[in-house]
């Protein structure tokens, strides 16, 4: 199987060698251009740099530097701007049935950011994306199966394409209802990967600094995180695609966002590489005749751009339409 994209890292931008995908002769017929563009290859790395810089900004708070205080569920930027996760905002609203100015001022900048970047949070800021990628690597090593789109629930009602989206909204709405009934933000407090990641992250730093920490927090959130990683091992990105209401909420922003996947005229060799490398099971080739793609599952990770047989000549991510 030569179809599967290896990480672009081992391809030197300037080497005349063909892309590893294509070197073994699987696809030559359909693809005319093999030239490798620097910036396209770096997209997956850039994504990691962004995540690591955010992590470092969060770490600075333990040195008492007031740049980014808090965690991924909500944080405080530059000691003045409140930021709150959109789904957490809705859940807090559902649980308390009232709204506060603080929450509103916190959610507006976040909504503004994602009106521009859509669901880019999932691909660029969510720590689970990185951890899931690590799990993917382990799974590929163990099973030798490079496919991202292993369909664990094939032929189940969960995996009937269009339905999966509806199920996701159903779960998100159900969680909001549970929050309203219980009177606590149920998902955000107990199940959220963001909260649990923050708890593990924060508690371990506090533990290391000999500050007050409840050990049950560390144990509970650690095991919740581990079970998510286990889920990822057996059902790749099932969490992101269907179960995670945070992502589903941000997915709604994809419908309006400025950032889109865009296609240029022609050149598509219909090799399907883009869909095969896509984490999120987005049906990219179904949208080729449209100027852009507005799938709620697209997290703008850029794997399709990198994986495209035409190397960025066809699929691209941009805020503006192509001329």
């Amino acid at each position, binding site marked *: 199987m030569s179809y599967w994209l290896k990480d672009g890292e081992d391809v030197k931008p300037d080497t005349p060698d063909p892309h590893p995908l294509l070197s073994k002769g699987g696809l030559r017929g359909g693809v005319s251009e093999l030239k490798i563009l620097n910036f396209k290859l770096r997209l997956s790395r850039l994504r990691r740099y962004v995540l690591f810089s955010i992590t470092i900004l969060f770490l600075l*708070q333990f040195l008492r530097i007031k740049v980014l205080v*808090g965690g991924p569920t909500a*944080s405080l930027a530059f000691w003045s701007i409140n930021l*709150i996760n959109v789904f957490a905002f809705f859940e807090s609203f559902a649980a308390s049935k009232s709204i*506060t100015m603080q929450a509103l001022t916190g959610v507006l900048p976040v909504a503004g950011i994602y009106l521009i970047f859509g669901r880019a949070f999932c691909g660029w800021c969510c720590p689970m994306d990185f951890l899931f990628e690590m799990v993917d690597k382990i799974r590929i090593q163990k099973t030798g199966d490079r496919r991202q789109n292993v369909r664990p629930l094939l032929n189940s009602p969960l995996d009937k394409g269009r339905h999966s989206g509806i199920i996701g909204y159903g779960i998100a709405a159900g969680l909001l209802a549970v929050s309203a009934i219980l009177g606590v933000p149920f998902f955000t407090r107990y199940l959220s990967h963001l909260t649990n990641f923050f708890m593990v992250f924060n508690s371990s730093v506090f533990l290391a600094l000999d500050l*007050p920490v*409840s*050990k049950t927090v560390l144990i509970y959130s650690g095991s919740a995180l581990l079970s998510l990683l286990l889920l990822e091992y057996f059902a790749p990105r099932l969490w992101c695609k269907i179960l995670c209401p945070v992502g589903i909420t941000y997915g709604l922003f994809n419908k309006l966002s400025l950032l889109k996947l865009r296609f240029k005229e022609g050149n598509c060799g219909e090799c399907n590489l883009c869909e095969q490398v896509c984490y999120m099971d987005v049906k990219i080739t179904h949208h080729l005749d449209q100027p852009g793609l507005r799938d709620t599952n697209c997290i703008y990770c850029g794997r399709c751009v990198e994986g495209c047989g035409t190397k960025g000549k066809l699929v691209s991510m941009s805020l503006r339409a192509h001329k």
Partner: protein
Amino acid sequence: MVGTAAILGDNPRVMASAADDPSAGPKGPLPNIGAGGLIRPPGALPEKEFRAKCISCGVCANVCHVMKYDAIAIAGFTPPSPPLAKGGIGGVLNYGTPYIKDMRDFPCGLCMECPKHCPTGALQKVEKENTAMGIALIDFGLCFGWNGDVCLSCSKACPMGAKVFDFYNGEWGNQPYINDNCVGCGLCVKYCPLGGSAIKVITKKQYETVKSSYVSGFKKLMSMPNEERYNIVYSQNLPNIMERGKLVEREYR
């Protein structure tokens, strides 16, 4: 007997575990003291609304860390204590919410930054003077000031000063009494020189249930004949204080 039992327990290990479990209540003449509810950061909404609003984001705890107080910790699962058992799953509902964990080490500095920065409004902006995190209660059986000494460390540490403290000078020392104006920051708890502190902060709600017994104990002590007081001080309180003196060796961070 009035004021003879240790509020906080007897040995450092017990005390440490009591601190880990915020709802555990030691036994003593003041029933259930310290049980029932966590001490919330300043400006917290009423308990039920607070739990509904709080999304466990941890901003308050980290703001507290940045401000160098480190008072706020995130609550874990706690076994339901008697007052909470009636309400059912209080220990589970409190999971992930912030509270002031141990005022002996990390009292609240009343910087009032956490309510300012709470992203959901679970903590509302409040004046320092109007904060109501809890109320500090002095154990008359352990306090130096009530047993023949002049200490007053608590009143010197108190950011509210004379507004909170009443003093009853007498033969048995300069006896401090913390009145209802206390905001519950816990600075007095930290600066009490007695091993493990003779002061404990409890929530205002909890105070309502123990107020009558506490105040009557105070009044009884004030009107007690000298011989009886002498007996209590020398036969019970001072040995207890001496015993607690060994706890000074407890490691304070």
